[in-house]
């Protein structure tokens, strides 16, 4: 797919979706090590249960990293200016996440032509896990 340009992109255009395999314990362990998030609630079921959770659950930043992939699959990372999310729900083991994005606005930001993209991720049951927005400069 050709990289998007300001003139060829339109409001309401959808970014190509990114679908992930179901979350398993291995994924959480690898992300703990790679990201530096060693909070045991994500990798040690005993700690998770002691804090009132039924089991370990995904690091929020794993879900945000997947949304980052959605964005950089669409436009080069060097054009990414802002990336903001709100974590709306816990991603549990077995959740298969799909990341989506929609061009919401074309605008000028610090003299650059940009688009604001609304992004979200949800599991296979349609439960929303993350909502947010990104500002991307386009040539």
């Amino acid at each position: 797919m050709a990289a998007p340009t300001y003139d060829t992109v339109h409001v309401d255009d959808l970014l190509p979706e990114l679908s992930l395999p179901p979350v398993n314990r291995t994924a959480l362990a690898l992300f703990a090590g790679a990201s530096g998030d060693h909070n045991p609630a994500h990798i040690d079921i005993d700690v998770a249960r002691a804090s009132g959770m039924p089991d370990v659950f995904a690091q929020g930043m794993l879900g945000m990293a997947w949304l980052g992939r959605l964005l950089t699959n669409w436009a080069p990372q060097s054009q990414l200016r802002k990336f903001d999310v709100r974590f709306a729900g816990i991603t549990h083991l077995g959740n298969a996440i799909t990341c989506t994005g929609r061009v919401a606005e074309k605008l000028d930001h610090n003299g650059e032509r940009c688009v604001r993209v609304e992004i979200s991720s949800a599991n296979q049951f349609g439960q929303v896990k993350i909502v947010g927005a990104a500002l991307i400069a386009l040539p």
Partner: protein
Amino acid sequence: MIDRKWIGHQVGQSTLVIERGRLKFFAKAIGETNPIYLDEGAAEAAGYADLPAPPTFVFAAELDSSTMFALFDQLGVPLGKVLHGEQGFEYFAPVVAGDTVTVTSLVKDIYDKRGGALEFVETESTAINQRGETVATMRGVTVVRN
């Protein structure tokens, strides 16, 4: 309840050397398939000086040095009670393998909702590289379940 005296508190600095091996490990952990994050040659062909750090990677600096975990310890908040509420990045320059990134953070605000059942700790961070250039700023909100 968290003592509001911590609003304005400067969290210790964290320095992270951006290593190729760590970036490839991170790329594997997030299922990355785009070759510019996995192969130095592809990264250079795309105009990067070396493998680029993905958009959320710089967040690792504070986690690696444990300054954020130490902060919650100081605040008297057990890690088992925290959830990530919000996270934001603004980008000013690329971060690539070989860079050294230093992150400085402060506690921007602490507030509560539902009569204190939920407390929110908002932090602001600035990441600079070895040339003193600001590469990114970050804003985070951590939710404490009381």
